[in-house]
C-alpha cells in the first residue's frame, strides 16, 4: 500500500503529467472565479481532450481542474457577493460581509486555508477508506438518505435568526424552500406540480438562477445604495497582515475546520446529496459553535467561522465523492458522473480493480487533490493583494460588470430565457427577504434537500413499507435530528436562566 502511495506521487511528478495537471489547475482557477461557468460543464467540455492521454495524465488533468473550482469560487463569493460556483454560496454570508468591512484579505486567507485543509482531509479520507468503505455505503439505503436529508433540514433552526421570532421566519423560509423544491413533474405519479402551464418549470427550478438571484441582487442593491466600492466602509489596511490573520483564524478554529471537513467528506460519499448540501450543513454547524445569542447574531455579518466551515466542507467533499465513484462506479454528483465517463473513455472499470490493478492510479488521484489545492492556494495567496483590491473598485464600474456576469451565469444553466426570469424573480425575493430580516440560508438548504427527501421517502416506503423506521441508523438519525433542531434553544435557555437569576 505504501509503495503504491509513493508510486502514485512519482507518476504524477513526470514532466508531461505535471504539465497537464498545471493546465487543468489553470482552467479550474478561472472556471471557479467566473460565475457563468460550472465545474461539471467544464469537465464535460474537456472530456474529448483525454482520448489521447494515458489514464494518469487524463485524471491529473481533469481532477486538477475540478478539485480547485470550489477553492477559487470562494474568491468571487467573498469579493463580489456573487457565487462563483453553486457550491460556494454559503461563503457569501460572512465572507462578503467581511470584505465590505475592509477584511477581504482575512476572509480570503481563512477561506483558502480552510479549503486547503478540507481538500487534504478529503484526499486522506479517500486514501484510507477505499478498502473499508463498501460496508458503510451499503448500509446507507433510501431510508437513511431520507433521514440524512431531514437531518440537514433540521439545521434550519441554526440558520434562523435570534429568538422565537427569528426561528419563525427561519422555519417559514425553510418551508418556502421545500415548497419550491416540489415544483415540476412529480416522479411518483407524473403529475405536474405548481407549473402553471409553463414548460420551463416541468423539470423544476434550476438551482443556479435561484441562487444567483437570491444572493447577488440584494448585494448589488446595497452596493448601488452606498454608491461606493464594496470595501469602502472600512480602510483597506495591509492585506498581507489580513491574510495571515485569516490563516491564523483557521488554526484557532481548527476543530471546527476538521468537523466541517468530516461533514463534507461524509456528504460527498453519500450519492445524491452533493456540495450544495455540504456547505449549508457545515455553515449550520459553524453557527452552532456560537457561545451565546450575541455571538450567534454576528453570523451573516462577518463571523470568520462562517467562512471556515463552508470553505473546509466544500473541498473535502471532492475526496469523499471520489470514494463511491472509484470503489463502486456509483457517482455521488453530476461532476462525478462525468468523471465516471472519463474512466470508461480510458477503458477502466471502477471497482475492485482500482484497489489492485490500478492502485497506483487511485493514489495518484489522492495526490492530485492535494497538490492541485496546494498550488492553487499558493498562487491565490501570491496574487491575493491584487485580487482583494477588486473589492475597492468603484460601484459604478462593478455593478454593470457583475450584472452581466449574473445574467450570463443564470442563462447558461439551461440556455433559456426562463433562467433569466427565475433569476430576476428570485432577485426580488432575495431583496424582500433581506429588507424584512428573513434569513435566506434556510430557504436554500430546504430547496436543495426537499427533492432528495421526497424521492428517498417514496423509495424507502415502496421497498420497506414503514418498517424502515425501525432500522438502527434511521433511529439514530431521528434522535440526532431532534437533538440538532432543539440544541440551540436548550443551550440559550440554559444560559439565559443563570443570567436572569444573576439579574434578580
Amino acid at each position, binding site marked *: 500500500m505504501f509503495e503504491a502511495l509513493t508510486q502514485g506521487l512519482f507518476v504524477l511528478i513526470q514532466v508531461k503529467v505535471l504539465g497537464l495537471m498545471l493546465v487543468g489547475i489553470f482552467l479550474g482557477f478561472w472556471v471557479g472565479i467566473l460565475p457563468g461557468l460550472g465545474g461539471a460543464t467544464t469537465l464535460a467540455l474537456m472530456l474529448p481532450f483525454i482520448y489521447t492521454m494515458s489514464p494518469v495524465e487524463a485524471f491529473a488533468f481533469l481532477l486538477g481542474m475540478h478539485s480547485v473550482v470550489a477553492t477559487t469560487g470562494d474568491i468571487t463569493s467573498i469579493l463580489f457577493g456573487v457565487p462563483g460556483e453553486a457550491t460556494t454560496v454559503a461563503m457569501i454570508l460572512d465572507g462578503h460581509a467581511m470584505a465590505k468591512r475592509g477584511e477581504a484579505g482575512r476572509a480570503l486567507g481563512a477561506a483558502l486555508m480552510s479549503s486547503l485543509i478540507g481538500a487534504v482531509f478529503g484526499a486522506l479520507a479517500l486514501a484510507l477508506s477505499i478498502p473499508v468503505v463498501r460496508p458503510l455505503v451499503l448500509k446507507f439505503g433510501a431510508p437513511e438518505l431520507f433521514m440524512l436529508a431531514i437531518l440537514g433540514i433540521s439545521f434550519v433552526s441554526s440558520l434562523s435568526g435570534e429568538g422565537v421570532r*427569528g426561528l*419563525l421566519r427561519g422555519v417559514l423560509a425553510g418551508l418556502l424552500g421545500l*415548497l419550491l423544491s416540489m415544483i415540476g413533474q412529480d416522479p411518483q405519479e407524473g403529475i405536474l406540480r405548481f407549473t402553471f402551464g409553463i414548460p420551463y418549470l416541468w423539470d423544476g427550478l434550476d438551482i443556479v438562477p435561484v441562487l444567483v438571484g437570491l444572493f447577488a441582487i440584494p448585494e448589488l442593491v446595497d452596493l*448601488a445604495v452606498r454608491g461606493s466600492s464594496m470595501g469602502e466602509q472600512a480602510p483597506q489596511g495591509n492585506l498581507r497582515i489580513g491574510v495571515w490573520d485569516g490563516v491564523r483564524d483557521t488554526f484557532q478554529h481548527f476543530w471546527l475546520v476538521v468537523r466541517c471537513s468530516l461533514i463534507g467528506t461524509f456528504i460527498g460519499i453519500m450519492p445524491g446529496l452533493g456540495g450544495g448540501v455540504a456547505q449549508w450543513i457545515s455553515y449550520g454547524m459553524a453557527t452552532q459553535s456560537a457561545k451565546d445569542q450575541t455571538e450567534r447574531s454576528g453570523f451573516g455579518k462577518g463571523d470568520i467561522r462562517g467562512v471556515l466551515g463552508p470553505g473546509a466542507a466544500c473541498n473535502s467533499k471532492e475526496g469523499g465523492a471520489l470514494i463511491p465513484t472509484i470503489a463502486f462506479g456509483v457517482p455521488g454528483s453530476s461532476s462525478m458522473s462525468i468523471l465516471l465517463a472519463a474512466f470508461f473513455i480510458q477503458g477502466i472499470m471502477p471497482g475492485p480493480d482500482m484497489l489492485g490493478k490500478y492502485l497506483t492510479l487511485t493514489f495518484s488521484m489522492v495526490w492530485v487533490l492535494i497538490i492541485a489545492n496546494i498550488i492553487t492556494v499558493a498562487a491565490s495567496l501570491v496574487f491575493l493583494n491584487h485580487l482583494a483590491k477588486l473589492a475597492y473598485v468603484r460601484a*459604478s464600474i462593478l455593478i454593470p460588470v457583475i450584472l452581466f456576469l449574473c445574467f450570463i451565469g443564470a442563462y447558461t444553466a439551461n440556455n433559456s430565457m426562463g433562467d433569466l426570469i427565475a433569476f*430576476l424573480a428570485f432577485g426580488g425575493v432575495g431583496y424582500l427577504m433581506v429588507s424584512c*430580516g428573513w434569513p435566506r440560508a434556510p430557504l436554500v438548504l430546504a430547496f436543495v434537500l426537499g427533492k432528495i427527501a421526497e424521492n428517498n421517502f417514496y423509495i424507502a416506503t415502496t421497498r420497506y413499507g414503514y418498517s424502515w423506521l425501525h432500522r438502527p441508523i434511521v433511529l439514530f438519525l431521528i434522535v440526532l435530528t431532534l437533538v440538532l433542531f432543539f440544541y440551540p434553544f436548550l443551550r440559550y435557555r440554559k444560559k439565559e436562566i443563570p443570567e436572569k437569576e444573576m439579574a434578580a
Partner: protein
Amino acid sequence: MKAVFKARSLLGLSVTIIGAYAFYDSWHWPNKAALFPRLISVPLFLLGLLETSLSLSGAEEQKGGAAVDFEFSTDVDPITARNRTLSLFLWVLGFFALIPLIGFLLAVPLFIFLSLKFQGKEGWLVSILLTACCWLFMEGLFDRLLHIPFAPGWLSFLWSS
C-alpha cells in the same frame, strides 16, 4: 419604518397565500404526489398567518429577530436609498428587456456601455474599454469557444424578414 412594517406584513401575507394556494392546488392530486406539498403547505399557511399578525402588531420591536444574514446599509438617507434602489431595478429590467429584443450578444455591450456612461458617469475611455473587454469575453468564451446557443433578438428577425 412604517414602510418596512408594511413590507414585512406583505411578505408574511404572501407566504400565507402561497401556503393556502399550495394546499388548494394539491387537493385533486393523487395522494403520493400531494403528500409532501400538503405536509409543507399547512404549516406554511398557519405560521405565515402568525408572522403576518405579529408584523401587523409590531411585535418585532420587542423581540428582535435579526436574521443570520447581511443587512442593508442604513447610513444613507432613506429617500436617496429608495431612488438608487429603484434606479438599479430599472437598469436590471432594462437589461432583461434588451436581451429578447436585440439578442444577448448585442444587449451585453449596449447595456454595459450605457450603464457605465450614463448611470455611472464614467469617462469615454473607461466606458469604451470596459465594454470592449466584456464583449470580447462574451463573444470569445461563451459564443466561439463554448458555443452557448444565444438566440438572436426579435429585431434581428424583423430585419432579416
